[in-house]
């Protein structure tokens, strides 16, 4: 059933729609090194899609291809039924693809609120002049933006730190603020680069809950990268497994777990 592109309803009652993003035969090289070798997979509307693999498998490179930070030498990226031309990262962001970074890229000098507001930049339309004077459409727009941001702040339970400069926050909260900023853009596709990296068990549980809630409440399609298999298997609808730049598995967590190649890649196997 899950191999068709027909919409279906998951066991927990969420609707998974048609193909939102389709990666076709992607190959990415750095000089002579092939970071990604001829990989194809799709991401469907409303699902949580994980890309997993050991260190150096090419997961982050793949995420960077999706978000436009890298341009693949071969292959096509299809988004919402259209072939996406080569784009700069800011253009991809304007298409409605938001992301977080493995090493956190926040505006350290700004407050939490200001950081999240930058996520709304692509939704601000009124002219510079009216914004400066704070009248007319600009005012209505700012009020609307603020309301959405406040909703996200409530949702991610960061009310207490909204006026705190991000530079002063501990690591786990920074990760949450970064997620909030990405959510503020109301993305059609949300990319999370190792959202649980460097977290303790409790923080990981919190983050997992937020990811599930975001997907459930806002219906946001999420693609995430992890190398911790345990967390991912509980979270995701479908999983792509990468190793040395190749795709070695693709399917539901259960299917992937039973795949011999995946087991070998993770447990290590002698090749002689």
């Amino acid at each position, binding site marked *: 059933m899950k191999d068709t592109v027909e919409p279906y309803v998951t066991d927990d009652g969420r609707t998974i729609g048609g193909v939102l993003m389709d990666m076709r035969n992607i190959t990415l090289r750095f000089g002579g090194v092939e970071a990604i070798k001829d990989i194809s997979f799709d991401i469907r509307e409303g699902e949580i899609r994980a890309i997993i693999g050991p260190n150096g498998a090419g997961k982050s490179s793949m995420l960077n291809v999706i978000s436009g930070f890298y341009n693949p030498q071969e292959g096509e990226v299809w988004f919402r039924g259209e072939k996406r031309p080569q784009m700069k990262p800011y253009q991809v962001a304007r298409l409605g693809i938001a992301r977080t970074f493995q090493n956190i890229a926040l505006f*350290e000098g*700004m407050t939490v609120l200001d950081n999240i507001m930058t996520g709304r*930049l692509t939704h601000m339309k009124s002219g510079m002049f009216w914004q*400066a004077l704070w009248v007319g459409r600009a005012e209505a727009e700012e009020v609307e933006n603020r309301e959405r941001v406040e909703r996200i702040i409530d949702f991610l339970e960061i009310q207490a730190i909204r006026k705190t400069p991000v530079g002063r926050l501990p690591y786990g909260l920074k990760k949450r603020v970064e997620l909030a900023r990405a959510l503020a853009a109301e993305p059609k596709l949300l990319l999370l680069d190792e959202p649980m990296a460097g977290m303790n068990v409790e923080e990981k549980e919190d983050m997992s809950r937020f990811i599930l809630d975001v997907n459930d409440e806002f219906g946001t399609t999420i693609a995430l990268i992890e190398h911790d298999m345990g967390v991912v298997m509980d979270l995701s609808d479908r999983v792509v497994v990468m190793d040395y730049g190749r795709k070695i598995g693709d399917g539901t967590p259960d299917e992937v777990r039973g795949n011999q190649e995946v087991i070998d890649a993770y447990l290590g196997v002698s090749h002689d």
Partner: protein
Amino acid sequence: MSADFLYGIEVVINGLMAGVLYALVALGFVLIFKASGIFNYAQGVMALFAALTLVGIMEGQVPFAHLINALFGTEVHHFGWEVPALLAIAFTVLIMIGFAWAVQQFVFRHLVGQEPIILFMATIGLAYFLEGVGDLMWGSDIKTLALGLPQGGSLAVEEWTAGLGGDDFYGFFIDKLDMIATIVAIILVASLIIFAQYTKQGRAMRAVADDHQAALSVGISLNFIWVLVWSLAGIVALVAGVMWGAKSGVQFSLSLIALKALPVLMLGGFTSIPGAIVGGLIIGVGEKLFEYTIGAPFLGGATENWFAYMLALIFLVFRPQGLFGEKIIERV
């Protein structure tokens, strides 16, 4: 109050106003440095170029007249009209925006990710190139900037303050042009702050100044923001060029005022807009007061030439990040 004390106050007031002009030049540096990490050596030349262009347009000068005449054997120098000041200012602003676009398009777009020293060298090249273009376009003679700004000491202030001291005090001498420069600077800084805090582009500008990668990920075009900050720096340069030009004529030594902005930046910090203002004021007041109390009576005068640099040097030793270090300013 004794006359000496009152004259001391007058020195401080005049120092503050001189400081405003230093601050204006420093402001241009800060804008570009904060958003792109480029130390723009050409800021002073941009002030000169803007002032030259303004005068040229106002007087109806034919740009590149010398070159045109040499190539085609013609004898054109003037269009024979004069352009009203406000219109000429609008044209000059457009030209500075065009210059900002060209700088980004032809120079810095190709140098993204290079070492700071390479970017710095590029701005040195840019400075001499722009100076040459200014010379070629408008000629190298000293021009007067006839914007109709009032000049000379303000009689009103003098009469108003004369009663403060005894018979040997004649009131404060304050240059009207300095007063106007101060008002213009306050308006300029206030609008820059409103722009940065409350507009979409201002927010994007602060974002780029903070983290390039994060800015890209929320949909900000770095290229656009850099053209924007170079344009703003161009407009600030125009204001600085007009004020210095009105004071001492539009001449090529104007580009050297950029050097006076260096100690201001060392004091205020390279990334802080308030720092540029406060630094400018401290240097302005400091050098005037030093000249009045120590320089002239004991050191034979002319200490204004080096005092600012000495002060900056002392600052570098004890507080290398300037008064407003990176961490404080980023929250402004």
